[in-house]
């Protein structure tokens, strides 16, 4: 097959482009690049849950908020180096994921979606009632003032590349097979020996960990965190937009979706008053014209995949 070398070259060129970006691109471009990287990461993790394991979560923001707050608390109150704090954020997110897993895995489909959302809302309320993190006032992550832009960018890039690679490898692994089976028919997959709880659990933890990390990097860039926003549903709605516009259940979907999303956001913010109406219109339009997302529709038309996960 000739597809394989083409694919490899493409990936290498893309990587080279991304890695050298801070050297030649404007700082604005790098900033946008960072946002794209972070959204790719977050969306890939949502896609891992929703697109491959059938766990449509509306509560990813719980890990975003937790990651951000862990960063804020440990860097501001304990003087922990920022990047280490970001790592803590990942671990705390995993901890939360373990705590709630027994409860949320009993729920399926929309129940799971709403269940996770409610947990995130509840966490938001808890944080806004908690004096230690300054109630609803929010916190500044001041050590981040001093970080270099390219440093944060590379952190984002590493997360982005490793999350995509992780999803790809995971799907090519045996676990990926089980996940797809669970998504299609969970009961039937169980009678074929798949331990559903374990598979979902692994995915959920991975997704929590990386989402927590990405949130840390995100708030290194945003610097100010506030509970209602950090634990707000709009995060997951954005991820939903990215994954669905890009193509759910594909590795490439979140990448394309994130690029479109970030560029749209940058572009639209200037149309004050109309920006969201246009955004809504575009959302509906894309769903109509590319029902399987852009990547899904492209794949149908051309049959070409950048990251093939099927077993022949």
């Amino acid at each position, binding site marked *: 097959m000739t597809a394989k070398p083409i694919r490899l070259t493409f990936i290498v060129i893309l990587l080279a482009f991304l890695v050298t970006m801070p050297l030649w691109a404007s700082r604005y471009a790098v900033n946008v690049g960072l946002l794209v990287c972070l959204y790719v990461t977050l969306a890939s993790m949502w896609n891992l849950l929703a697109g491959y394991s059938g766990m449509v979560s509306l509560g990813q923001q719980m890990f975003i908020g937790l990651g951000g707050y862990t960063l804020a608390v440990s860097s501001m109150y304990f003087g922990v180096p920022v990047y280490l704090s970001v790592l803590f954020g990942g671990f705390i997110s995993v901890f939360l994921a373990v705590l709630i897993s027994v409860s949320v895995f009993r729920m399926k489909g929309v129940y799971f979606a709403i269940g996770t959302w409610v947990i995130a809302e509840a966490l938001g309320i808890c944080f806004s009632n908690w004096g230690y993190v300054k109630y609803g006032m929010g916190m500044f992550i001041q050590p981040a003032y001093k970080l270099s832009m390219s440093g944060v960018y590379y952190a984002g890039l590493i997360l982005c590349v490793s999350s995509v690679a992780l999803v790809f490898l995971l799907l090519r692994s045996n676990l990926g097979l089980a996940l797809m089976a669970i998504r299609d028919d969970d009961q039937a997959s169980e009678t074929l020996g798949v331990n559903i709880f374990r598979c979902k659990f692994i995915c959920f933890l991975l997704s929590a960990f990386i989402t927590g990390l990405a949130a840390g990097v995100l708030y290194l860039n945003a610097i100010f965190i506030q509970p209602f926003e950090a634990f707000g549903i709009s995060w997951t709605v954005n991820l939903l937009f990215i994954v669905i516009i890009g193509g759910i259940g594909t590795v490439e979907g979140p990448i394309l979706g994130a690029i479109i999303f970030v560029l749209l956001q940058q572009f639209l913010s200037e149309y004050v008053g109309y920006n969201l109406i246009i955004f809504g*219109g575009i959302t509906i339009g894309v769903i109509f014209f590319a029902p399987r997302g852009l990547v899904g529709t492209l794949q149908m038309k051309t049959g070409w995949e950048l990251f093939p996960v099927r077993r022949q």
Partner: protein
Amino acid sequence: MIEYLEPLINGILLGGLYGVVGIGLSMVFGIMRQVNLAHGELMILSSYLSLVFLQVLGLHPLVTLILVAPLMFFIGYLIQILLFNRVMQRGMEPFLMISFGLSIIIQNALLLIFTPDARSLETAMVIKGVDVFGLFNIPLIYLVNFTVGALVLTALHQFMKRTYMGWAINASADNETAAKLMGINVNKVYAYALGIAAVTAAISGVLVGMSFTFYPHSGTQYLIIAFGVVIIGGLGSLPGTFLGGLVLGVSQLFGGRILGPGFQLLSGYIILLIILTVRPQGILGGR
């Protein structure tokens, strides 16, 4: 004892309102198996429509329903025909996205037309209380909300259980192909269903508009209530929706009374999570 009677009664009555807020979503969510993120906006749109009629024609808010309800039915019908019908069979996500797009369009169009100013549907009722044995007052508006809520839910439940249209809505959602083979015009039936859901949104929009103030972005807040209510009760069960409203209302007010006001909303969520953990299909949910 008396101390707990007040939150109990208030909670039940508040729950009635929550129930109505949930019905429209329950129709779409439980019966058509889709998540309509624009439900809250349909409610608030109705509140604004009622406001317009109220100001232009000088009617009582409840009376404006005579105009608002058919109008919303028509709007719901059109939304289904033009937008939702195209993605009904494509799983959960495309529908989620389209309804999300619709919700931000409605929200921001309202913002452009009506400015971000607060509005309310004025009636003399809102500041009246009903004295209960001289112990405490129950807001009159709560009684109205509860009564309307109970009526709407009962009517709709009977409609879904006893009429061909009700069966047809359920059947279409279960299996489109088979429904077509029964002679059901599936697209039209869905459009009726969303029309009905929009009418319940209109009713809850007017009640909410009378009880509270509203803004173009108020919809979101009611959406999560509606979700809670439907989930607690169990998908597809209209009595469940009403029960869900009561459970949410009572647990909020009790939580607020016992744990402190900061925990009023939180205790509602916690009860919700506990119920879902113990009974992942909701209280009256079948599967």
